[in-house]
């Protein structure tokens, strides 16, 4: 049997692979991926809303699939490839979804935006019938809440990239 723990098992030694970089870290065993990203790796683009899996603000990709980082332990993500909002642009060129959000003014306060964008990036790689119509986009973006209700513009931004 192996485990991710060393001497005291209420602490864990993990290797977080984030945006192509490797971050070794020693963390409290109950540290969520979200808190590790923000407080230990200082990647504060990922936001904390509800901290209970309900709002989507903390959405990141794990091995290419969207998850909420507040309801997973950093230890559970040991060695997995994590992509956050900071990892989307390539050589300073924003991801097409980021461009579309700017173009369509798909935000107001911006608090939910990182999560919306990560979710949308993931959606573009999922079954095509999840983005065939505006209703499909709404359904498969429903895990991302926006208190400012920028929904129409978020849908418009995603529709544009999905249609390309």
């Amino acid at each position, binding site marked *: 049997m192996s485990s991710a723990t060393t001497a005291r098992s209420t602490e864990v030694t993990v290797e977080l692979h984030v945006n192509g970089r490797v971050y070794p870290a020693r963390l409290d065993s109950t540290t969520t991926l979200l808190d590790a990203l923000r407080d230990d790796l200082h990647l504060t683009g990922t936001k904390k809303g509800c901290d209970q899996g309900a709002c989507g603000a903390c959405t990141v990709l794990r091995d290419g699939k969207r998850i909420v980082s507040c309801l997973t332990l950093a230890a559970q993500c040991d060695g997995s490839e994590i992509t956050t909002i900071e990892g989307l642009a390539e050589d300073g060129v924003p991801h097409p979804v980021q461009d579309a959000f700017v173009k369509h003014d798909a935000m107001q306060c911006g608090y939910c935006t990182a999560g919306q964008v990560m979710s949308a990036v993931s959606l573009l790689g999922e079954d095509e019938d999840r983005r065939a119509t505006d209703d499909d986009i709404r359904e498969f973006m*429903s895990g991302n809440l926006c208190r400012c209700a920028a929904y129409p513009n978020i849908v418009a931004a995603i529709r544009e990239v999905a249609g390309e």
Partner: protein
Amino acid sequence: MSDIEYVRPTDTSSAVTLVAEDPDAAFLAGGTTELDLALKDRVIRPSRFVDIGRLPLRGVTREGDRLRVAALTTMEELAADPTVRSRLPFVREALLLGASTQLRNMATIGGNLLQRTRCRYFRDPAVHACNKREPGSGCAAIEGVARMHAILGAGPSCIALHASDLCVPLVAMDAEVELLDADGTRRVPLTEFYRTPGDRPDVENVLRHGELVTHVVVPLLPAGTRSGYIKVRDRQSYEFATTSAAAAVQVEDGTITAARIGLGGVGTVPWRAWEAERVLVGAPANERTYRAAAEAAIRDPFTVPGTAFKVELAKRTIVRILRTVTA
């Protein structure tokens, strides 16, 4: 500083031992229920998380007319399975109408079966009266806000709902759960896996401490069977069921020859509507039959003022799913 240990065994027997040896240890699969209750709501206090997330218990295999689903398969993975799409379409529908894509990428099938109730009083450590958390302390929901609570299998000790969507078609299909502990393996029908609260609302199923759900075995629908799942919610998406129903029926020359009905949003356990099935089989496929089946399904509900509306809503949900799958 937390006092919860974290271990990640690489084989199933170590995982079983690591939970069995400590009465307060808990399996951690996707974590979407367990971490919520232990770290956020703080209504359970595990001493140790035994992370089973990387055990070799993932994937779906076809065994003749059955599907064997390993417990750590995610909700998204099961929904995407080609056999589920073609031969268990209402299981796919129930999966995709649950939670969000993010959560479905994390949540496992074993965890979905064992998700805890969403009763807000159970999840609030400031509430003292909760027989499920503290047997004998009372039930705050009975006189509280009980819109999302059960009317079947419920009683004065507890009206907490089992909120899984997936389990609704699974109980209708006579799915079985495969369990493993130090004594070996056993198979339990899902319809006998859960316990209604009675005078022990803290006991929710027949699982022994340290027993691991390894697989869920689901018979496939016979060719020519139509199936469907309907979920009635307070908002259009990303919400638990107020009521739901899964149905699979066969109709020959206008007569119903086979019927399986499961109900969600109404039971303290995923609910199999046996009485409704008995009314349906042999009867003409028409509105009068559907209403009679609905009446039979919701006989003797236990309601409180907050849940009384569900009696009629559940009946209409049943009529609607029957109409849909026979149309």
